[in-house]
């Protein structure tokens, strides 16, 4: 009997659990799958360890899906209710927009923090260069090693590549 590799066991288990969940709670599974479609797609496409973008999108999508799920569960958990909810464009748009917001949050927050850090580093470099220039002027200390860039922005403070 062929043995399954350890790294592939988890998706199999996850798929099995999802199947069991879909069979046991079909209205909920259908509604969640429909509302979280963008997150599921990103989840399948993202290759970064831990899938942070998909995770952030899923959490935002689940936040938007909380009210439709509550409606479903409060009305007897029927498939008709699921279809009625999915037929409401506002419900689907809200869930998908929330996931879009999650995507924006996951992509823009690193850029924002990097920009803040770059500005702080540049100010620090300027202060240090001014202090060294004063020392050179006052004490005749030779200029720093030319290999050390003192007039340009630190290269490491460039925008973060995703």
């Amino acid at each position: 009997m062929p043995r399954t590799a350890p790294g592939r066991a988890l998706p199999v288990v996850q798929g099995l659990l999802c199947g069991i969940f879909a069979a046991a709670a079909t209205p909920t599974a259908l509604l969640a799958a429909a509302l979280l479609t963008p997150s599921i797609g990103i989840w399948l496409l993202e290759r970064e360890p831990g899938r942070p973008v998909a995770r952030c999108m899923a959490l935002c999508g689940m936040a938007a899906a909380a009210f439709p799920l509550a409606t479903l569960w409060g009305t007897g958990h029927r498939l008709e209710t699921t279809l009625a909810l999915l037929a409401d464009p506002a419900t689907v748009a809200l869930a998908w927009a929330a996931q879009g917001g999650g995507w924006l949050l996951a992509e823009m927050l690193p850029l924002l923090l990097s920009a803040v850090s770059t500005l702080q580093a540049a100010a620090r470099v300027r202060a240090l260069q001014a202090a060294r220039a004063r020392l050179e002027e006052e004490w005749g200390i030779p200029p720093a090693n030319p290999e050390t860039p003192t007039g340009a922005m630190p290269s490491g403070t460039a925008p973060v590549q995703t």
Partner: protein
Amino acid sequence: MAANRTMPQSTSAPATAPSLGFLNPSGSPALLESLDAFCSIDFTAPQAESGGGIAYAARPHRAGQGGLQAICIQPEAPPRAAAMAALAGLAEPGLLAPLACGPAAGPNGAVGWYVICPAPPGPPLWDGSGVPGQPWSEADLITRVLRPAAAALVALERRRVTHRAIRPNNLFLSAPMGPVVLGEAWSAPPASRQPAVLEPPYVSMCPPSARGEGGIADDVYALGAVLLALFLGRMPMAGLPGTQVILRKLDSGCFQAMTDGVRLPPLLGDLLAAMLADDPQRRPPPALLADPAAARARRVAKRPQRRASQPLLVGETPVWNDRMLAYAMARAPQDGMRLLRLGVADHWVRRALGDATLAARLEDAARHHAADAASGEGAQLALCGAIAHLDPLAPLCWDGLALWPDGLGPLLAGLDPQDPALPRVAAMVAAEASTAWAACRPGQPAPPPPRLDARAQRTLLQDRGWTGGLPRLRYALNPLLACRSKLVQGMAVRLVDVVLAMEATAGAASGPTALPADPELVAFLAARQHGRPGPGLAALGPGTPPEELALTLLRVLAPLQGAGAPPAPHLAAWLARTAGGGWDAWHNRALRALKQQQASAAAASGRLAALLPVFDDTAGRRADEAAYQAALAEAARIDAALRALTDPVSLPGSGMRTLARDVAGAVALALLAVCAVAAAAG
């Protein structure tokens, strides 16, 4: 007995070591800062009859004084500082005592040093051309020459000073039939102008500058020789070279050699026999000569002179007695050492002279230094000791040189730097030969001590750097010798002269082209500083940086420029320029600029004392150096911080991205929680 060569050393300081007061211009009337305040010197023409030196007529500024003469001091012949110090203020009618000594602007405007003394009262007994005069009668000799000269010698002896310049052209008639007056003898080393015939052989065998102060007995000898010359109307042994004069005196005795069978009057003959005695201790003292009859009656038993039946050849010279052998060995040291090493000398002394004791001493002297004879120094010490044993009256003889120990200073002053005798003199000092020589002549009175004993001389000689060696020794032994550095152009005799002399050099049209110090000047400064020179001077040498050299010189010269002294702007600028090479030692640029500004202002004022603190600021330099080191550390810290900010390895990029994604996840999770709670609540 007082009338011997030991006279000056029988008491302490004055005769041999001039007091500091004499060297201090304000401490003694004998040494002046400038003769212009004392007299006016007529430089139009030298005086024809001055007694030997180049002299000019001088007129005193004070009324009541008679005519004066200014005798020029030659650079290679330093004056007798100790004698002038001892005779300051002496009023002796039979003597031209020194009145002052100091610098004056000479015929060409060049500053020279002069000894001022009274002008001769009349013509000399003989003029300087060597043409003899008419023979003198015995009565005239005793009345007009012997008694007044003896009285002058008594006055000198009382002050522990010798004259050492008694010769016919330096004895002056005070009146047509009056007594004689002893001429000046202070402007040159003692006996340096005396002919060989007028001096004892143990003096004339030395170079003119190395004859030492001697004793009053040497003056008695010279006076006796002058009496004989005046009686004969000619110079005894005229025409003979000095070596032959000495050999004849050593062979047959001075009196016999000088008189050469001439019949003398009984009184004069007895006096001259005593005055021309070979042994200084057998000559009558000057006080006794004042009464010729008493001096005649004083007869001292004379040791019979041994003479060999067969001569011994030393080189080309046949010798007949121990004294001639000593002199021949002194003149030909290589032959002497060979005779000593082969045992020929002691064999000849034992067999030909019959003196077994002296022969044994010669053997001992040769054996004593046989162990290190190969080094040269041991052989010379052996020869020196052998000569002293052979003739205890002889001077110190070393490698062909003969000198009295206190004549070492003038001898060094008279030698050129390239003179071949200089290495021999250095070897003699290094071997402390004078100590060994004195130990080989027991029973003989010690000669006048030099200004420095043998050990001190050796210490100075072996001192490395510019404060040691023969230049230092030369200046230490000659307190009135002018500095020979080109930087002072012969115008500095005392420390206080250095500033003005260097100012003149610095202000010359060509301007100074060399460093402001050289070995001669440093040796001069070290010798003239009382006590040991400071560590700054002692540290100077060929490798000293110019700025350190200038700073050291500034430290020495600044105290010498008194408050009332004229400013020396050229010298100050010279020193500031040279010391300014060390501006780089000041790191703080603002402080350096301030110091340069202060130095320029101080140099313009010409006050070295104002310039000194600008450069001699050890505390400021130390603080500047400490601050500089702190600045370097701060710069290193800044460089490290800049490198850390620009180092790609240490950049927080990926961490920052992960953190941002985690924050985003947390925000989303919080939103989910809020919505879940809100949905559950309905």
